């Protein structure tokens, strides 16, 4: 079994890599296997997790017994979940063209709840928290800061400030405003360059992992 599995894995791995040269039968085969099996996999997992684990168990909580066989406190059923199921059934109404428009209700519900939830979430974690984090002293008398730290703090403050200027929509990037925005976009470019360079290593690790598998586990070339 192990052996067969190894060969299957190697076959699939090489099939995907063959795409780097060009699209071909082998890749198409791997792709179609991948799509079919993974779609099935996720549905099953979501089904058991959500429909069974969250909905069913929530509405009909399992009863717990102690050693003597007496019923001990069991969780209270959460009938609110039925609303979710009703919305879900509304979603499927699309299958019947005549009442298909009902499916917009759950959609509207989802869009509304996503907007409402994220509005506050993003506002606090992205806006407020970042502003708060940027309120830093450039230098202080009470404690030691090296010259690098001072320059670093200055760069953080100026970079954040000018970066925000760059995102301003109400003013054309011209004159002093344009020049400030320019510093902002440079900061953002450093950010992008740096993150890109930094990421290379983890991407290589993934390839190393696969080559390790091919040469080591499969071909046995590495001791």
């Amino acid at each position: 079994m192990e052996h067969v599995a190894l060969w299957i894995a190697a076959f699939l791995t090489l099939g995907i890599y063959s795409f780097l040269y060009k699209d071909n039968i082998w890749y198409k085969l791997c792709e179609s296997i991948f799509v079919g099996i993974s779609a099935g996999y996720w549905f099953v997992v979501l089904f058991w997790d959500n429909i069974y684990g969250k909905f069913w168990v929530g509405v009909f909580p399992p009863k717990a017994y102690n050693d003597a066989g007496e019923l001990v406190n069991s969780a209270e059923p959460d009938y609110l979940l039925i609303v979710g199921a009703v919305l879900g059934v509304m979603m499927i109404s699309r299958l019947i063209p005549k009442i298909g428009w009902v499916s917009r209700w759950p959609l509207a519900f989802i869009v509304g709840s996503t907007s409402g939830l994220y509005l506050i979430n993003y506002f606090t974690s992205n806006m407020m928290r970042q502003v708060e984090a940027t309120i830093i002293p450039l230098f202080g008398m009470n404690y030691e800061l090296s010259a690098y730290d001072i320059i670093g703090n200055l760069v953080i403050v100026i970079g954040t400030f000018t970066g925000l200027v760059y995102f301003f929509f109400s003013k054309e990037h011209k004159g002093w405003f344009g020049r400030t925005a320019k510093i902002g976009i440079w900061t953002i470019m450093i950010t992008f360059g740096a993150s890109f360079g930094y990421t290379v290593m983890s991407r290589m690790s993934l390839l190393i992992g696969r080559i390790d598998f091919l040469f080591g586990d499969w071909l046995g070339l590495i001791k």
Partner: protein
Amino acid sequence: MTMVDIGRLISLIFIGGGLLWLFISGLKGKEVDRRIIFLFIFLSVATPILFPITFGEKATPVVKAVFDKVESLPEGSRVLISFDFDPAMAPEVQPMANAITRHSLTKGHKVIFMSLFATGQALLTQSLRKVVGEEFPELEECKDYVNVGFKAGNEGVLNVIVTDFKKMFPTDVNNVPYDSIEVFDGIKSCKDIDLIVSIGGGMPGVKEWVLFVGDPGNVPVAAGVAAVVAPQMYPYYPEQILGILGGVKGAAEYESELIKNYPHFAEMDTPALRMMGPQTLAHMVIMIFIVIGNVLFFVSRRKRRGK
């Protein structure tokens, strides 16, 4: 000269020669096909794997901080290592988990293993089998270490265990009840743990550990993360995270520090150090390609201006 040396020499000559040739044709203004780049990346990674090439690593302060913390805790301290990663991230971060596990067990700490990723549990079992099973056969489960496995609920789990560990983990993976596990003696919540190490860079991961356990519970948290997320962790260092192992390089630094202090580890598996060979070579190749790209750009611009 062994076969390995010959192989290494030939491949390095091939890579070096090929790049030189591409550089020269770049001077003539010839673009490189992306498939040739792919080939060189493959070669630069495969060569050091087949014919090991290692480069020395010196631990940077961020990594040293984690090592020193584990080193300085008194014997019998409780260390929690959380495997918060999935198979896709594993090649990069599992070596860190293994190295810290080795170090903690060597120091005689009692280790609690857990995972916030469903797929992390299998990787955890794998690490236990490999590191604990093979290298520390004398240690007893539940007495010297315990594996409580995966619990669904992401940061919800953390929110609970910061005040009550047993509530989330009534038993370990083998259904041994919490109270009969020696490791948990006197441990009510995460606040009673001496060091938390979260390995993984996804969601939930280090950030959640810091926000839900480290900060509220005032527990030292160390992090091992994929290189991609490491920059996002630096702002937490050193106040909220005591040290960070970033990517394979961080793991390699930890391993070399481990070997420096405990020479017998040199004979054991040091996957991160081994992995740094292909890393370094691949980084060099990419940098050379960037240079070639720029040479090409300036050559073609001069040509255009010439006309």
